[in-house]
């Protein structure tokens, strides 16, 4: 499985309140949530994002609330993968549970710039910045988590 798209770059400590503000949590509709994704940090994001694009951020991405609406909004906006230096732990669980691919790679997270074309090979964890030609190796998931992903998410892995 692979992803390829344009990078949308963010900094440290991107919290779930800016990923999807609480004023929109009165719905669980994926489409409505996607329409407000990243609104309080980049109001043009929803107009610029294209299907398959890649989100890149630095440390502690997704900190704050446990709202699963955050990875749902990102996935429904068309983002195919999030690369970050580190993820906040509830966001990490939620992304795996709903099938939003995420990769931890500090070097890639710091060096990739908005607008770069980035490709990701999920089997090997190799990230390629096609704009600069540089490649990076992301941390592989533990086998236990790989199994959840292979089975199509947490619920399918237990039912």
């Amino acid at each position: 499985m692979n992803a390829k798209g344009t990078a949308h770059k963010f900094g440290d400590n991107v919290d779930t309140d800016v990923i999807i503000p609480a004023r929109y949590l009165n719905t669980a509709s994926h489409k409505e949530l996607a329409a407000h994704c990243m609104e309080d940090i980049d109001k043009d994001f929803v107009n610029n994002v294209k299907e398959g694009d890649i989100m890149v951020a630095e440390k502690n991405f997704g900190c704050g609330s446990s709202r699963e609406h955050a990875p749902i909004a990102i996935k429904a906006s068309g983002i195919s993968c999030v690369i970050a230096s580190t993820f906040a732990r509830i966001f990490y669980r939620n992304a795996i549970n709903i099938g939003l691919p995420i990769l931890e790679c500090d070097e890639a997270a710091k060096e990739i710039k908005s607008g770069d074309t980035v490709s990701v090979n999920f089997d090997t964890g190799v990230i390629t910045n096609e704009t600069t030609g540089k490649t990076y190796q992301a941390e592989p998931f533990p086998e236990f988590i790989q199994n959840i992903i292979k089975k199509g998410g947490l619920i399918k892995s237990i039912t």
Partner: protein
Amino acid sequence: MGMTMSQKILAAHAGLDEVKAGQLIEAKLDMVLGNDVTSPVAINVFEENGATAVFDNTKIAMIMDHFTPNKDIKAATQVKQTREFAHKYDIKNYKDVGQMGIEHALLPEMGLVGPGCLCIGADSHTCTYGALGAFSTGVGSTDMAAGMISGKAWFKVPSAIKFNLIGKPQGYVSGKDVILHIIGKIGVDGALYKSMEFVGEGIKYLNIDDRLCIANMAIEAGAKNGIFPVDDVTREYCNGRYQGTPVEYTADEDAVYDEEYTIDLSELKPTVAFPHLPENTKTVDEIGEKEVKIDQCVIGSCTNGRISDLRAAANILKGRKIADNVRCIILPGTQKIWLEAMHEGLFDIFVEAGAVVSTPTCGPCLGGHMGILAAGEKAISTTNRNFVGRMGHVDSEVYLASPAVAAASAVTGYITDPAKLN
């Protein structure tokens, strides 16, 4: 190798004699929690996957607290969906307007969580119950759905940071100042994926509300959980209240910690977190007398909406007036706290000072309702997050503080050290 308190609780619930940091385990759950924002997503996952039964209808709590009393039609629709699910599966601890309170004030009060229990909640502040010697952590809605179906969850066993609390807090220093100080020291990802274990002779000076406040904000340092050992303060609170069987865990003497900090509570000062991260802390004496002008004061939330917090605010507001052009909104955490505050005469003090008292709700803490900020406005708040746009407009600001500092600031209209009030 020795185990931490958190590791012992996880091992016991996984049926293992020993666990190690980094190990992936599956553990049995004593309580699965959701609210009016996260339960509907969990119910959708539950139903879309064809589940037809819950693992135990007494071990699930659905507390309608975030946008209730329902703030709009969409919020009402989400609560209706949750109410119908709760009725269909006979969920015993479904709590709506009239019985509900802010979930993390309500569950300890009702005795649904207690020493040694393992709880997951689809709300990040579920880590609050570590104050009672429980292992308790926030998860998302899919984990909540899986927990409701199977009664189990997977965990990566966390390593831990030990906070050795010594000394007695002085003056207006409360649990809120302790945790803001710690977050200021280690940062918003200082405990990422880890347990924060609070021990030491200083904890005997922290009442149960202080401890609930400290454990509540462990997530603001990125922690998986925060936990206190069980002592007489815990036992007095939980005896006759906790519906389960309490089990007391202490860390082994040779338990391994990634880091250890000693915090002298007697040296702490009232502390404020400036926008837009809880780690941006200053002590009140570092803030100029008229440096930060406020438009609103919020006293409440799962962090500071308990009776001790309301008493601390009333102690400041008694015989004083809220400054002109400041809105002071007080939100008791539960119906029981509301009644207690009313009987003690705290509402007379609040209303005579010019504050308003709300029904229990998370409300303004997450920018839901009951006190939203306009562009350019600033609030001092006893809540837990000061992220961009957290209480309203993206160009508003939230300053986090204790009830005493918030109340003193409401009186002067500027962020103020309560010790300096006339």
